[in-house]
């Protein structure tokens, strides 16, 4: 657990979270808290349970057996690996999807401006590049001013250059909006660059909970992930 979790209000509290697929235990009595505005990167090998944990927080695991205590804020946004834009709705309509605020459209236009897509409000999602589509997805996730942003490898499908630009954008957006963030990734450098805190998951348990400012962080993380350079 983070050392300062007791002093600050926590956005997310996870106690004894377990998830099983049949006999296979994916999450094994996991504890984790994320404080308000804290950016946590969740690293782990394939099958370590990181996506299962994110889906549990997003409430997308209704067919999965398991128990535990979860406390999450009211306003939660999810960014998926694919942009998941509805192809039959224009960009702005995608951004304000499910937003019931009276000034939804104005906020949507502002959110698009924030991700550098002013003027593309009337475009169809298929007219945008992969990176632009993912920017629209970011705008959609931020337009509701979430207290918690859940991101499941949001840049995994992008090329290396676009990914670097998206890192900058996400960092700026998070500084401005200050949501608590749980970023699931397999990219060690992405985690170091973006996160305030890095959690490594291994076989459904937390193997490591560190700050990216720690010396030799890259080697420490790679070792925890079972990669020996």
């Amino acid at each position, binding site marked *: 657990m983070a050392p300062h979790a007791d002093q600050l209000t926590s956005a997310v509290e996870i106690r004894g979270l377990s998830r099983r697929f049949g006999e296979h235990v994916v999450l094994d009595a996991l504890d984790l808290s994320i404080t308000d505005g804290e950016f946590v990167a969740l690293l782990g090998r394939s099958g370590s349970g990181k996506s299962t944990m994110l889906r549990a927080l997003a*409430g*997308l695991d209704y067919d999965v057996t398991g128990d535990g205590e979860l406390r999450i804020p009211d306003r939660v946004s999810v960014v*998926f690996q694919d942009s*998941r834009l509805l*192809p039959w*709705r224009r960009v702005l309509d995608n951004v304000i999807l*499910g937003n019931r605020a009276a000034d939804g459209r104005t906020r949507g236009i502002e959110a698009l401006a924030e991700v550098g897509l002013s003027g593309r409000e009337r475009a*169809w999602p298929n007219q945008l590049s992969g990176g632009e589509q993912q920017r629209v997805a970011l705008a959609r996730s931020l337009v509701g001013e979430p207290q918690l942003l859940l991101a499941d490898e949001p840049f995994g499908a992008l090329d290396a250059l676009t990914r670097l630009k998206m890192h900058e954008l996400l960092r700026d957006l998070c500084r401005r909006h200050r949501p608590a963030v749980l970023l699931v990734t397999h990219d060690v450098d992405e985690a170091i660059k973006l996160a305030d805190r890095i959690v490594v998951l291994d076989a459904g348990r937390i193997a490591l909970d560190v700050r990216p400012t720690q010396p030799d962080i890259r080697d420490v993380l790679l070792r925890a992930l079972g990669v020996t350079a």
Partner: protein
Amino acid sequence: MLTSTISSTISRTAPPPVAHGHVRRRRLGPGRPIPYGRAVGPLLLVTIWAVASATGVLDPRMLSAPWTIVGTTGDLIASGDLQTHILASLQRAALGFLIGGTVGTVLAIVAGISRIGEALIDGPIQIKRAIPTIGLIPLLILWLGIGETFKVVIIALAAAIYMYVQVFAGLTGIDHRYVELAEVQNYTRWEFLRHVVFPGALPGFFVGLRLSVTFSWLILITVEQINALSGVGYMMSQAQLYAQTDVIVVGLLVYGVFGFASDTLLRLLERRVLSWRRTLTS
């Protein structure tokens, strides 16, 4: 200087003949399209037909000459017969298609968005699907007689089935990723249907429309030739009795023109409504 050295080095290993700044390659694609290429085949057929008729190779009792057919079409229009028959046929096809298409769509929506609806509706429709609509003609004649109702009902039955199958597939085939998205965006069920399910099922709806129209024509031709006192099919079966191949061909042309026109119309409508898709192909 440098580039020429490089290219000469390459040309020693594999000589690429370079002309006008283009590397020559054997073109393996089918090449440029011929202007109005689609018309070439039909025009050739008509030419062969005309030559065979003019030289007497083609017996007019088998197939009338093209100019005879043009003349007959003129006569049939002048007498008003063709218009009357076309109007009768159009009315049946349109009525059957409208009723069938509407019923099929409504049933598909009920079955597609609720499990109870699916349990009640999908089974019977799948059973009906296995029975060719034309096979129902004897039973429907016993029930409804041989009047207009029978013809409209049987066209509607065929249209409803094709519509149902496509719309149901469209509604139930919504990408699971969009369902998840709607869930994390806290959609109500109605918002989910309106913004995700129905727009997502529209392509299937248009496939259903086009199939329904095609099969409305098909069933129309069948029922008009079985039992009718008006309509293009009636005109053709009468012509058969008197061996008027020219009138039969006029009837076939009418069916062809209307089939083609209705499909084109629907395709234009589809392009307008599903304009978001155009970006995928362009």
